């Protein structure tokens, strides 16, 4: 009886002295970790601290160099995701890993189909069940091909996929990085429900508010080492940040626009920009010295508007003026030539060259800065990368290493460094701090403010409302492809923005 009792109170997962290195990089240097039954346990740590590596080991994707894993009190050696699945581990990966050529429903039930003893597929049932799960999370068509979905919807599919598993431990590695507040809240409700059913959840996030609102305990990692575990109720965000970063971060957001920076000079002016199915009648001015934000729900069309202005995708009509001069852009190269650049929200798909070196990634858009007469100076290129990396607190081994060896947040920094390395006149940043840790985030925000001060037009798209409110001087809210409102100053509150974001627009004529 006591044995049994001990079993039930014993942690579901207990990890001792786990080590893992990649060549000379020590990702984990003797980590301890304990997960209780039915708790929501947050993991915090800077980019590259080793969080994903630890999760990948629990899921059997990576093999640890040494250390012990007790699952349900039993020592286990998890050698493959299939085995982890059998143990009851579900995993939402930081990097979205879906099959682009098959439907959402098939993706969601891939593991179930794999384990099922059924001989035939029942597509109708799959779609029905996928529809049920997706309805809780957000609006995704279960019959759509994953390749046709924007990254935020793919994120929802990835979450739905894990929820179908009959798991005892659910790992969520930055699931909200590309989600807006509304979808995130739904996810938290589901998490709490699962926890109440006795499922243990590991939740990785760089957003302190999420951790403190939803989790029971939080463990902090730094440089591959376990630092501390605290009950959320007994600690504060600044204490956690302090143990993560090793110093106190006093102000997370830079100062807003100063009075002397205020100017009526319009840098970018957009008039009646319309794309037949994605957005219409978009008109706004971006003024010198300000940081403008785009807010909205998933699928509102924020990214599409930015890409439309840069002529990256879609056929648009309307006018774009830069410093009062009407532009006649044909493609993105024209846009770059005018100094208008865009940072993609889809890091892996269109932000970085995974198998190329960090240096080559950072100089991709500004080769002329590291070359003379068309000949690349490799030393200069490496220095260029080092400089860019330093300013974003990039954690890497060598600039010649492939970007694929970096942690997710550090990959994001590379994508950002690439874009910041040009000297733009207008810069669109789509989820610029996706997956970036608090320290680096603050530095990125400071850089953006600095750019704005220097007269660069800065436009930020973010799904994280606190970020928009903290960084931007003015926020335009997009709903269903149209601007539904604008907030500035004290009116910039989450309530106001959410209200505007959920205004339903009269249906667009389908073309």
């Amino acid at each position: 009886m006591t044995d049994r009792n001990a079993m039930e109170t014993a942690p579901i997962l207990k990890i001792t002295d786990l080590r893992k290195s990649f060549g000379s990089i020590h990702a984990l240097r003797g980590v301890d970790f304990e997960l209780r039954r039915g708790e929501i346990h947050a993991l915090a740590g800077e980019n590259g601290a080793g969080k994903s590596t630890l999760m990948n080991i629990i899921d059997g994707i990576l093999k640890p160099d040494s250390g012990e894993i007790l699952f349900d009190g039993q020592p286990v050696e998890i050698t493959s995701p299939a085995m982890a699945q059998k143990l009851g581990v579900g995993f939402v990966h930081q990097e979205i890993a879906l099959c682009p050529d098959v439907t959402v429903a098939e993706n969601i039930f891939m593991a179930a189909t794999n384990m099922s003893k059924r001989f035939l597929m029942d597509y109708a049932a799959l779609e029905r069940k996928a529809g049920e799960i997706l309805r809780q999370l957000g609006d995704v068509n279960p019959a759509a091909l994953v390749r046709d979905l924007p990254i935020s919807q793919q994120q929802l599919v990835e979450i739905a996929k894990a929820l179908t598993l009959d798991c005892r431990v659910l790992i969520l590695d930055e699931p909200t990085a590309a989600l807006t507040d509304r979808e995130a809240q739904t996810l938290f409700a589901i998490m709490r429900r699962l926890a109440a059913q006795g499922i243990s959840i590991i939740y990785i996030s760089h957003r302190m508010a999420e951790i403190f609102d939803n989790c029971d305990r939080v463990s902090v990692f730094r440089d591959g080492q376990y630092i501390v575990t605290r009950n959320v109720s007994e600690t504060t965000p600044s204490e956690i940040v302090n143990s993560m970063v090793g110093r106190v971060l006093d102000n997370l957001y830079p100062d807003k626009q100063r009075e002397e920076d205020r100017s009526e000079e319009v840098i970018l002016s957009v008039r009646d920009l319309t794309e037949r199915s994605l957005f219409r009648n978009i008109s706004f001015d971006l003024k010198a010295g300000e940081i403008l934000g785009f807010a909205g729900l998933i699928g509102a069309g924020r990214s599409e508007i930015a890409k439309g202005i840069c002529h990256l995708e879609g056929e648009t009509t309307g006018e774009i003026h830069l410093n009062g001069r009407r532009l006649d852009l044909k493609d993105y190269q024209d846009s770059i030539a005018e100094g208008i650049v865009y940072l993609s929200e889809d890091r892996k798909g269109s932000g970085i060259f995974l198998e190329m070196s960090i240096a080559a990634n950072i100089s991709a858009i500004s080769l002329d800065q590291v070359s003379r007469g068309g000949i690349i100076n490799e030393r200069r290129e490496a220095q260029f990368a080092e400089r860019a990396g330093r300013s974003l607190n990039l954690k890497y081994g060598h600039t010649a290493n492939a970007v694929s060896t970096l942690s997710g947040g550090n990959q994001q920094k590379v994508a950002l460094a690439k874009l910041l390395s040009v000297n733009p006149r207008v810069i669109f940043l789509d989820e610029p701090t996706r997956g970036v840790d608090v320290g680096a985030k603050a530095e990125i925000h400071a850089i953006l403010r600095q750019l704005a001060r220097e007269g660069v037009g800065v436009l930020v798209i973010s799904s994280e409302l606190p970020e928009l409110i903290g960084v931007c001087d003015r926020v335009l809210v997009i709903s269903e492809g149209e601007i539904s409102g604008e907030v500035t100053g004290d009116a910039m509150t989450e309530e106001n923005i959410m209200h505007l974001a959920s205004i339903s627009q009269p249906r667009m004529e389908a073309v």
Partner: protein
Amino acid sequence: MAEGAMAGMQGQGAAPREPADYMKRLFKMRETGLILIILALFIAMSFASPYFLTWVNMRAMAMAFAVEGIVVVGMTILLISGGIDLSVGSVTALAMVIAGLLFLNGVDPWTASAISILCCAGIGAFMGFFVTKVGLHHFIVSLAVMVIARGACLLGTGGRPLGLYTLPPEFKFVGQGAVGVIPIVIIIFVVVVLAFDFMLRKTTAFRKVFYTGSNEKAAAYSGIRTKRVIFLTTTLCSTLCGVAGIIYMARFGSAQPTFGIGMELNVIAAAVIGGASLSGGSGTIFGAILGAILLSVVSSSLALLDVSVYWQDIIRGSILLAAVSIDHYLNKRRGR
């Protein structure tokens, strides 16, 4: 073929809802463009030549691609899983040679065929080993095996075709006989195509092939043993080459060490024309067979029209290019 005609949509995982929009779906599916192009060719040819729409000509055209069509099935499945196989031609020839040598040494032809097909499966497994365990690329492994298997054919036969005229009639019947007017070869072909088309669309086991080819990592994360899937599709493709080789042997009553040179390009082209992606994850058997039919009809038509040989290649290549361009255009217009 009506069964097969639904391959496109269902291969994509859609489920039929109302019978009413059946026509709409037919128009929307991936293969419609190819079907239209082939139909157009048929109509043009039946005006151009009075011999085209004869039973004998149709039979000759069907016989010309039926056996290769079995290899196309294997290649398509392998392509979907993300692989490729350049050795299909040599392995098909080797199947003939192995079975032929065994038969000439007194083994009963059915047993000889079974052994030979097993050997081909072994070759596939060999390639699968190098791809999944050693970690080499399909292209280079199958290129090496293409050379080795051709060498084995030459070694086994001294470069001379084996005359197997003495094969028993009931064995030759497989390759030369007919049920009513329908040749056995074509029946086998249709059965293989329908069976694999069905399995690929409907069975959970073959869906894993799509998942693996579409994103091997994602499939592995879902617990699919992707290496095993790739190993098996590689083995399957070679096994089907073995089957094709045996049928050729029964049909020709001989085993030719030089058979099938250049077959790989033809077979891959058929699959690609039919919508298979060279990077894996998509493709249908039905489409690939349409691709094979298109290639075959063009060749046969040029021969039937007595087009000068010096012009045939130019016309053949141009039609191929035009056909895939039109098909691509039609697919794009219908909505990617």
